[in-house]
């Protein structure tokens, strides 16, 4: 979920940390990373379906945050901003390293490795994720954010920097694309 729930701490705590980070407090920066590292990793994993790639993306995002954090202006929620940063890193990996085919082949194995009790359900979920990952980019983004991350369409639109109706349109098209496959 795209929420500040990883550390059971409030948005106010994050705000205070961000104030300290902007002042150059390395301890605050470390605490902020510790809190949001699982969020970055899990987000990357959902998009990539591969642990090693998710770790690579997480490392890349964390290193970039050392500099990019100063550019966070607070106009959006920190998690929304961080989600965008992570998503950009995910896309870059997908495009530049051409790992998608390998990922797709490994998702099935990973599904049985890391899924719990109801194997059939989990395989079904993994199968849907695999097909969603093959959608055109905008459709995939919209489906992931609204259904995978369970965001409102307004929140998804903010992350995708488009209008809500556009998110609806991408989901509609995704549904059409996948109708026969699912």
């Amino acid at each position, binding site marked *: 979920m795209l929420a500040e729930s990883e550390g059971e701490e409030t948005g106010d705590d994050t705000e205070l940390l961000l104030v300290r980070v902007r002042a150059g407090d390395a301890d605050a920066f470390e605490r902020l990373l510790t809190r949001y590292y699982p969020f970055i990793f899990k987000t990357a994993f959902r998009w990539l379906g591969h642990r090693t790639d998710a770790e690579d993306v997480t490392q890349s995002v964390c290193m970039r945050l*050392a*500099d990019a954090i100063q550019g966070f202006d607070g106009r959006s929620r920190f998690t929304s901003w961080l989600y965008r*940063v992570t998503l950009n890193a995910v896309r*870059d990996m997908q495009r530049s390293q051409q790992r998608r085919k390998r990922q797709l082949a490994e998702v099935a194995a990973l599904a049985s490795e*890391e899924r719990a009790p109801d194997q059939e359900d*989990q395989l079904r979920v993994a199968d849907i994720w695999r097909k969603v990952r093959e959608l055109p980019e905008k459709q995939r983004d919209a489906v992931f954010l609204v259904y995978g991350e369970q965001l409102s369409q307004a929140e998804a639109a903010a992350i995708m920097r488009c209008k809500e109706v556009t998110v609806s349109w991408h989901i509609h098209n995704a549904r059409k694309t996948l109708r026969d496959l699912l």
Partner: protein
Amino acid sequence: MNRPDRDPFELLPGLIDPEPDPGVMRATIAASREAFLRRQQGGRTAGPGWHERLADWLRSRRNWMAPVVAGAFAAALAVAILPGPLLTPERPEAVGDGEQVADLPAPAVPPDTALSRGRDADSEAVAEPLPAPTGPIRMGAQPAPDAPPPDRDLADLSPMQIVHGDGDLRLGYRFVADRLDLFLLDEAAGGRQIDSIPVPPGASGRPGEAFILRRDGAEILVVQTELGDDTAWHAYEVTDGSIGRNEALSARIADASDRREVEARLAE
């Protein structure tokens, strides 16, 4: 299990996320903290300002700048182009593997030992000891004044990859939506966008070989771009204070089989 009456998208949250590896997590956070500290220290102990370094660089590039400085655009050109690497095409090697870096100015990167496991060479985050800017921080390469507005979806924060051409020639590239943006990089002044190439859906791409050659007294930057299974050569030159693609020369060399053929065609 077949549940045709249930929206399959509703099943997506059912994915069980794995937990991150604690060792990798600790190493990554420690490395990022070091980079953060270095950035803070770098900001406080910055050397000569950006403009001073730029002026130094320009003084060392008089030959390249001479035809341009004579014009009224000299000052703007100094800020905008910075084709330093164009002047030293000494190294004979072809382009090496790409390196992933943060947007310019890049944070310092931890030593490899700080990370708990190795990384692929083509995804290595590298230290780019670019100086900290003296003004407000801006992520990413500076667009040309007449460049189209960037795609806000991705342009702000998508990491830039770097490839090396001849000598100290460095090109940056990154994907933004459905295009591949190319940048000419210079340590003193960051990046200068030189091209934006449409990329077919689902395809990937990157610059391949890159080098400088002289033609009729002018220096031409030649870049081979790989898009999916196709490759194409493009020629770039300085015109009216900016560097951009020369369509006529690019058309002439587009399908050349190798560098030797490019040179032969441009010599005609």
